[in-house]
């Protein structure tokens, strides 16, 4: 699916989680100035997995614990608002968690 045809909510989060693919994630990340490496994928897949299981988008603390990626590293991987960037690239809604 091309980026133009993609349906998102008003804030730019993917409207339908099934529209997501790894290819799309790469494109979205590039658009945000991030080149995805193994560490990024570990974080993104963890966020997606938690959302899939619990039905709610995780905050950074949960992602950090489950993916065993320190908070500090997450901020390096996704500078400028990691909670938002991760959710957008992973194709899940805006996190409801404050942590």
């Amino acid at each position, binding site marked *: 699916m091309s980026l133009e045809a993609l349906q*998102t909510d008003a804030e730019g989060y993917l409207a339908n989680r099934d529209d997501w693919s790894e290819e799309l994630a790469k494109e979205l990340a590039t658009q945000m100035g991030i080149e995805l490496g193994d560490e990024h994928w570990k974080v993104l897949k963890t966020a997606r997995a938690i959302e899939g299981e619990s039905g709610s988008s995780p905050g950074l603390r949960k992602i950090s614990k489950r993916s065993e990626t320190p908070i500090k590293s997450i*901020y390096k991987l996704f500078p400028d608002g990691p909670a*938002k960037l991760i959710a957008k690239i992973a194709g899940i809604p805006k996190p409801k968690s404050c942590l």
Partner: protein
Amino acid sequence: MTDTGTEKKRSLSVICSKGSFDMAYPGLILANAARMAGVPARLFFTFWGLDIVNKKKIDHLHLNLVGNPSAPIPAMIAGLPGVEALATAQMRKEMERLEIPPIREFVEMLDDAGADLYGCQMALDMFKLTKDDLVPQVKDVLTAMDFMDMSEGAQIIFI
């Protein structure tokens, strides 16, 4: 697609002036939310708020029940010895259940998230403390005027 742009210029300054367990969290949570959303955040700990970053007190902050109309127990009972400690323990347990980190871990998390923490010079003098009495995440000790200067254009929250 992205919602950056104007957000880049935003920044948040939180002034923490209270040292009770329940009043420590709002400032920490707001600063953390700002960082998660990509907004620069700084915190200024002043007066009783210094307790939040005081090495000796950070693990022992207490709930404030007396004089708190939201306290779930009658004021007469709230003032009895041990009641606040009991209520604090109860709240700690509940927060653990919700996976809200203890204050010390929260302060470390904020530092890792790139928030800047500052102690208030005047409050330190008043309590006869030095920067060494504060947790290492506190970057510097400032006067209120210094903090105002670095808060230019920021949204300021006083707690």
